[in-house]
C-alpha cells in the first residue's frame, strides 16, 4: 500500500472539517494560501482518489517509503499511479533512518554544557 505526503485544499475551514470524516491520516491545518484552507496528510492512492472524488483539490508531494522497506515492485494495479498522484510522486526514495543518540552520550553532553555555563 503506497502512501504519499499530500496537501488537501478546501474553500473554507468548514469544508476541511467535513474532510476529517473520511477516515484519513491528516495533520494540522496549513496556513491559508490564495484564499484556500488546507491540511497536510499521508494518504494512500485509494484515499487520494476518494478525497478528490469528494470535491477536494489534492496536491501530491512525494511518496513516503518507510526506511528499510524497498520500493515495492509496481503491481498491475499500480501501473496507473502517475495518473492518480501526478508526476511529483514518481521516483520516491526511502526516507533515511532517524539519527539517534544514547542516554550516556546525552548525559555527558548535558554535564559538559552545565560546566561551561
Amino acid at each position, binding site marked *: 500500500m503506497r502512501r504519499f505526503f499530500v496537501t488537501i485544499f478546501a474553500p473554507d475551514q468548514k469544508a476541511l472539517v467535513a474532510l476529517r470524516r473520511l477516515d484519513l491520516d491528516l495533520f*494540522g491545518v496549513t496556513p491559508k494560501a490564495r484564499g484556500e484552507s488546507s491540511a497536510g496528510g499521508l494518504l494512500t492512492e485509494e484515499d487520494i482518489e476518494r478525497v478528490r472524488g469528494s470535491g477536494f483539490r489534492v496536491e501530491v508531494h512525494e511518496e513516503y517509503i518507510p526506511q528499510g522497506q524497498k520500493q515495492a515492485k509496481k503491481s498491475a494495479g499500480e501501473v496507473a499511479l502517475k495518473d492518480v498522484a501526478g508526476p511529483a510522486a514518481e521516483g520516491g526514495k526511502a526516507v533515511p533512518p532517524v539519527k539517534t543518540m544514547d542516554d550516556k552520550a546525552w548525559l555527558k553532553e548535558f554535564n559538559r554544557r552545565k560546566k561551561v555555563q
Partner: protein
Amino acid sequence: MALCGYNGGYMPSGGIDNLVGGLQNLYPDFCKVINLKPSREGRPVRAVKIGKGTGTDRRGVLLVGGLHARELLNPDSLIYFAYNLAFAYKQNKDYSMGAKTYTAAFVKMLVENMDIYILPLANPDGREFVLNPAGDRMWRGNRAPNPGKLCKGVDLNRNFDFLWTSGIMTSADACNSSQIYKGPSAFSEPETQNVRQLLDTFPHIVGMIDVHSYSAFVMYPWGDDENQTTQPTMNFKNAAFNGQRGQTGDTYKEYIPKKDLDWFVSVGNGMAKAIEAVRGKKYEVKQSIHLYATSATSLDYGYCRHYVNSAKRKVLTYCIETGPLVVKNGVPDYLASFQPSFPEASCIMEDVQPAFMEFCVNVLSVSGELIEGIKQAASASVSAVSAAAPSRAATSPGAARSSGAGRRFAKFLEDNRDELLVLARNDQRLLRESGVVLKRLLPIIQSHQSDDPQAFDEALVKRVDELLGRLGEQGTPKLRRGAAAVRQDLQPFAGRTVIEGLRKVDAKSRRGK
C-alpha cells in the same frame, strides 16, 4: 544549558527510561521514580516526580509526552526539562533558556511547593518502531496486536474516556490507513491506563499538559465542539445532544465555565509569551477544536473528569503542539515538521521549556491567584492611563510622561512578577497582605470605566505604601528601585479616583520639570 543547535540525536526508548531512573539516582532527595504498567510489548513505562517537601495545600502538575510515536522531539524535551529543573534546584542556579531566565529562588519556590510529575514517554513501543530502520517513521499509535487482524496499533490519543463512543474523528477500523483507530474500548491500552493511574493515584494533580507536534499551538479544551459559557446543560454528558457534536458553526456548543475559559486563555497567553521570549518564536493560543475536532483525547479526558465525577478535583489541561510546519522551497515538508533535524529540534525543545515553567507557577496554589491579580492590575492601570489622557495618548510625545504613574505601576508589576511571587511565597504574612491589597485595588482601578468610579481611601494608599516598602526591603535592588518609584506616585491618589489620581501625578510631574 543552551541546547539550541546541538547536533545530537533523538533518544531511543531505553535511553529515555534510563534517564528517568537517573534522576532518582542523581537527586534522591527530591526526585522519585513511579513505576507504571509496562507497554503492550513489555517495555518499562516510568514517570518521575520532582518535588521536595509535603504540605496540605500542595498541588501537582502532570506533563505527558510521546503518546503519538512519530512526534519524536517531545519525550526528549520533557527529559531536558526535568534535568534542567533538577540541576538548577540542586545547584541553586538560575534556569535560563535563550533570553528567558527564571531565578534560582523561583525554581526553589516551584520545587519546594509543588509536585511536578513527568511521564516523558507514554508510548515506548511506538517510538521504537519509528526509530527502527525496519519500522515506520510516520507511525502514530502503539503496537497493540488487534485480534484476528494482521495490522497493529491503537491511536492512544483517541483511546481516553471522553465521548469515546461518539466516533468524532476516530476510526473503529484497526486496519484503516488513517491511524486514528480508537481501540476496542476506552482505556483498552496500558499506555493510556498509565495516564489515568497517575491522575487517580495523585489526586492533588490539578494541571496537565500533553505535548504533541506540530503546529506551534497552545491549545485548551474542548476538542469536540466550540465552547460556550452560558448554557450549562448543553454539555458532553447530555445524551439529548448526541450526534450533534463535532461540527463548528452549528447550534451545539460545549459548555465551559467562564472562569475556566478565562484562565485557559490568560495562562495560555502567558505560556506563549514565555515561549516567544526565548528566541522570538510565536505560538498561537486556541481552543483545541480549531486544530480539528477530536474525541477521546487526553486533553478533554483530563479536564472532563471533574464533571463526570465531582468528587475528583478539576484538572486544567493543555495540549502544546511543538514546532512549526516546515516549508522547503514553498512545499510543506511534513516529515521534517514531525521530526525536525536534531539541531532544529533542540531549539524547539528549548523554546517550550518556559511554557512548562509558566504552567507550573500558575497552577501553584495561591501564586496563580496572585499572578492573575498582578496581570489584571497591570492591564487595568494601562487602560486607566489611556482614559486619563485620551487625546494626547494618541498624538503627543508628552503622552508617555502624562501617563507615567500608571505605566510605572503596570511595568513594576510586570517586570517584577517572578520576584514578587517568590517573596510572597516565602513570607506568609506578605503573601496574605499582597492578596488583600490586590483584591482591594483591582475594583477601584477597574471602576474607571463605570459611571460611578470609586476613590482610593487614605488607609488603602497607606497600606499599599507599607507593602511596597516591605517588598523593597526584602527584594533585589531592581525591585527596590521600582517600588520606590511607585511609592513616590502614591500620595495624590488618596481620596481620588484612579483617573483623578493619574492626572494629579501628571500635573505634579509637569510642575517639577
